[in-house]
């Protein structure tokens, strides 16, 4: 395990030296990796670092406000509302890899804009050790800003956590005093709720997914899942009141895991499952059916796309 004290000291020195008096940006997603990298770099160089948070419109309920609050102490923080632009790019796109690509491209455009505005010549990234190995694999292209360095042509890239594993990053986050909502944050994919909506991503389906995910996180808190969420799979017939509806099918997923590499579907009580379906189908008009995903990883992945 990493020695946190000496790691933080070394990382700060490395960042200060690499940046000199130049301006750097970091893509802040609110996840533990980028948040910790941002906090480390901000401690090292203050407002020379411009953390950029892009609200894609694909975030969880209340997430953007939460980020704004947690990182309020960074005067240089930029919050970009780009939801219309992301939904425009996603219109008509149904293939999972194409979706990720469209989102990645738009992310790059958003950061490019800010980088030019603030004249950033350096990029700080929260890359961790498994990212460096996994990016060679073929499971999923999961790096939002993977193509950013090539496009913007930064003079330098600083990756202070390149040798750390996720649990070590969490230790560093705790050491830096990042609030629990960050240091213990449930993993959330870069492309956001888009990978939890099968088929075309529309504001309407994302709204269903967001509300249902909120219910799942709330109801399953006691089970301490590693990750728990809802996905919108497609449509099926239902009957609400005396009306036939062709509503969304919402899948509930709740898994326990150490590192996300393997996962076990959690064993939930029947009463819990019933409360979930009742709240999801009962309070979200467009939902006619709720299913629970019992598949482990492998053969399934944790996320749907």
């Amino acid at each position, binding site marked *: 395990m990493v020695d946190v004290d000496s790691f933080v000291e070394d990382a700060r020195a490395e960042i200060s030296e690499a940046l000199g008096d130049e301006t750097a940006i970091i893509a802040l997603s609110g996840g533990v990796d980028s948040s910790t990298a941002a906090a480390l770099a901000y401690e090292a160089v203050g407002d020379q670092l411009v953390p950029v948070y892009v609200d894609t419109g694909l975030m969880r309920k209340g997430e953007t406000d939460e980020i704004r609050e947690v990182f309020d102490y960074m005067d240089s923080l930029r919050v970009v509302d780009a939801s219309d632009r992301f939904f425009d790019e996603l219109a008509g796109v149904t293939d999972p890899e194409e979706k990720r690509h469209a989102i990645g491209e738009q992310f790059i455009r958003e950061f490019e804009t800010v980088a030019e505005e603030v004249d950033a010549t350096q990029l700080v990234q929260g890359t961790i050790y498994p990212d460096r190995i996994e990016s*060679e*694999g073929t*499971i999923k292209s999961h790096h939002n800003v993977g193509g950013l360095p090539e496009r913007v042509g930064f003079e330098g890239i600083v990756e202070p956590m390149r040798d750390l594993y996720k649990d070590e990053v969490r230790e560093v986050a705790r050491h830096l005093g990042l609030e629990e909502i960050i240091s213990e944050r449930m993993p959330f994919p870069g492309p956001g709720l888009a990978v939890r909506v099968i088929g075309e991503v529309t504001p309407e389906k994302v709204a269903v997914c967001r509300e249902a995910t909120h219910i799942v996180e709330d109801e399953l808190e006691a089970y301490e899942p590693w990750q728990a969420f809802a996905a919108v799979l497609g449509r099926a017939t239902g009957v609400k009141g005396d009306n036939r509806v062709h509503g969304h099918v919402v899948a509930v997923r709740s898994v326990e895991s150490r590192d996300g*590499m393997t996962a*076990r579907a959690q064993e939930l009580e029947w009463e819990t499952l019933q409360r979930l379906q009742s709240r999801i189908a009962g309070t979200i008009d467009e939902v006619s059916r709720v299913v629970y995903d019992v598949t482990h990883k*492998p053969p399934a992945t944790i996320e749907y796309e």
Partner: protein
Amino acid sequence: MTHILVVDNHGQFTHLEHRLLRDMDGVTVDLTDNTTPPADIDADGLVLSGGPTMADIGHCREYLTLDVPILGVCLGHQLIADELGGRIEAGDYGGYADVTVSISDADDPLVGSLAPDTRVWASHADEVVAVPDGFTITAESDICGVEAMGDTDRDLYGVQWHPEVAHTEEGEAVFENFVAICE
């Protein structure tokens, strides 16, 4: 210090093999691509990782003649069988997630300490159906006849499951046993 090299066959769990060994006392570990020339391999033991395809195993077949203890994991296990005269085939029943493995050779230095059985996490479509000459089947399960094999003369070993993942119950013991073989 015992120096172990993890050879990356581009499996999604390769970095977990590196992690497990890195955190072990008395062990130094490096991760290397499977295209590393055999002449440049300098280690007390090799771990051949899993991976998506036999078409992308680089120089792994040549590493088997380096006279150094080897642990093959998943695809790494299958490639040992394939190269040395065993046989691999597509399994009838893909091995995914939870599998209970019975240890058939309690004296085996790699998996014997897990006897009589152990719960593992697996992820494979293909499997070894015949082990090469000199090898013994050391573990089996309901869905796969060769869950582990070993040749104690040449110190070549293979496991079909993934000892490096968190959901495998006694995965660390497999690596500890392998390190003991390498010392």
